[in-house]
């Protein structure tokens, strides 16, 4: 499971079935990058995460969720 998950697909649906191309233009990236982010294949940078959230009029934590990995035991 990727550490950063997102609900971009649902947010696009909630925002009048916004297309990936439309979101890409608003966020200033290519459609391929939106596809990769939506599929969890690419973890975006902070500025891009904020731009995507802004495109939906949402907070960044409403779009992306961070799943903290369990800390590894310190070695003696």
């Amino acid at each position, binding site marked *: 499971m*990727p550490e*950063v998950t997102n609900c971009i697909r649902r947010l696009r649906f909630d925002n009048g079935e916004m297309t990936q191309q439309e979101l890409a233009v608003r966020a*200033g*990236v*290519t459609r*391929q*990058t939106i596809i*990769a982010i939506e599929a*969890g*294949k*690419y*973890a*975006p*940078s*902070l500025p*891009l995460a904020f731009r995507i959230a802004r495109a939906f009029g949402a907070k960044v934590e409403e779009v992306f969720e961070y799943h903290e990995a369990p800390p590894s035991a310190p070695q003696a």
Partner: protein
Amino acid sequence: MSAEQKRAWLVLIVTIVSVGGYVVLVPFVGAWAAFTFGLYFLLLFLPLVGRKQPADERDKSIARRGTMAGGLASYLAFVLGCMGTWWVAFAWKGQEQVSVHTMGIIACLGALVFWSVRSIVILVLYGRHVEADDA
């Protein structure tokens, strides 16, 4: 397909044609077959391929990782090439001199390894999970 992917495929095609042409022509023209590596001059035109398509942070991140991997592999090939030359010439054949062409061959090998590894890594990364450089 992004511009970087198109470039990577072009590099791989040029590499396959160059190496394949060399292998096929060596029995007929000997060392002159190395002229097939002149195709590598085509790579100078790489910036023209897909230049209308803008690159974003993911493209740049993948290209940077590909370049790093290509550079590391190329350096490794250079070191192994130099060590192999030393081993064959001095330790095995007992020669005290090495042809000046050997350095040219090692340089060609380095370029071949750099472009090939860079392209393969780029194509692989486009299909796998990648993180932004500052993520």
